[in-house]
């Protein structure tokens, strides 16, 4: 096998390619996260409502998406819809699939968070004569939000890692650029080691920010 040394020069020469891939990865992550946070809220309220026509679809959505791989949802959106005439661009299909899947997880996190905080604080607010809707808005949700930052943050880490899957529907993000560069050069191992470092920096940055926020919040709560 011979002395296999790590060719840093190669990495340096191809930095622009990694940067452009990183840019797309961040774009997909942010869009998907936004979709998941908003979508998750909508589904969470569906899950918590007493009306069956709201509860049933929300539950079906959560159960179905949590038990099927995001890759299949991605192919379904990208190739499936195209056959019916809705041609989504690779990025749109990728973002929708990631947002859809993670909205299901976030919905459960919101529901658990609100319900665990909810009962005691809700009763206190109602005891003060507040109507249910204002109590939720003024008391329950704000408290829940601060407690949910950690799980939501973890979901962002999951999304960042899952964006690597959109490479299979031709989105030119970090992993796809890696695949293309690997094909073009003999330095396949260097390429993917560099990509791994990029993901490591991204995910640990998010976790560090979370830990910092948690320590600061712990002082207040």
């Amino acid at each position, binding site marked *: 096998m011979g002395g296999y040394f790590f060719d840093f020069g190669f990495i340096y020469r191809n930095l622009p390619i990694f940067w452009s891939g990183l840019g797309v990865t961040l774009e997909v992550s942010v869009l998907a996260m936004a979709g998941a946070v908003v979508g998750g809220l909508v589904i969470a309220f569906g899950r918590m409502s007493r009306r069956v026509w709201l509860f049933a679809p929300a539950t079906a959505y959560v159960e179905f998406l949590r038990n099927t791989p995001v890759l299949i949802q991605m192919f379904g959106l*990208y190739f499936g819809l195209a056959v019916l*005439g809705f*041609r989504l661009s690779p990025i749109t299909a990728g973002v929708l699939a990631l947002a859809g899947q993670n909205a299901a997880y976030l919905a459960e996190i919101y529901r658990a968070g609100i319900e665990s905080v909810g009962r005691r604080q809700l009763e206190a607010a109602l005891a003060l004569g507040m109507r249910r809707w204002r109590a939720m808005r003024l008391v329950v949700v704000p408290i829940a939000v601060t407690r949910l930052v950690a799980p939501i943050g973890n979901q962002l880490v999951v999304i960042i890692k899952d964006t690597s899957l959109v490479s299979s529907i*031709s989105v030119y993000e970090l992993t796809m650029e890696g695949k*293309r560069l690997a*094909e*073009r050069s*003999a330095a396949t191992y260097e390429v993917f080691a560099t990509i791994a470092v990029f993901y490591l920096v991204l995910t640990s940055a998010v976790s560090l920010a979370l830990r910092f926020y948690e320590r600061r919040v712990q002082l207040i709560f």
Partner: protein
Amino acid sequence: MRRAAIVSGALALVLAWTGPGPHAQESRLNVVLKRGEVIIGTTSAAPPFGFIDEKNELVGFDIDIGRLVAKALFDDPTKAKFMPQSFEARWASVQSGKVDFGIMSTTIYPDRLRKVAFTRPYVDSGIAVLVRKDVNVSQMLELNNEKYTMAILNNPQSADRHKRFTPKAKALTFDSPAQMLLAVKTGQAQGMQFDVPVINWMVAQNASAVKKLPELMTPAQNNAIFLQQGDFAWWHFLDAVVGEMKEGSLYDDYKTIYHKWFGVDPPAQRWYLGK
């Protein structure tokens, strides 16, 4: 007693000298013959060369050619074990010896000659362009337009051809020709570029949906069998077998296989024999 010592000393010297050379690993040819079966790296995603049919079996032109090589080795075409693999993994699997040789619609290019050894071509190739029928394009240049999207394979040659012929069009990069065709058939892409025989087969299979453009993106090219470098005996065997297929004792088998997959006869054994 002394004489015996000298003789055995000399004998040992001779043996050491004529024994296996510094890196005379056993030739892959002997390994395969001893094993009684040849392991062939191929693809299951590039019709008509290698793909899964309705009966869910791995079939195709490359598969049949592989069996012809097995017949040449063991007089028994069934002594071939096919290992489907991705296009990215094809070099590594012959270099590491996981497969004895690779046959998966692979075109000879200089950069590839640096990585692996190739036999002489077993089928002509070249890059043709397939487009959707509902896209009124008759010449390749018309495709060079932002409103079109082309599907290409994830390798440098495809990317370079895209830059040269259809730079304005958007590019979708996929890992296999089958995925590229799916992108075209679902309308995510309007066209794709790939090996001539594969494009011919795809057009034949989807006559209502797609059509082939008359010009080629490249001059005639060569698809060939690839194997580990530096194994002269194994290379010579495979190269000679391909020679026999195209111009020698295996031409009849080669002709039936060729006709079965491409609907036409292969080039004649000798130029002067013409059809």
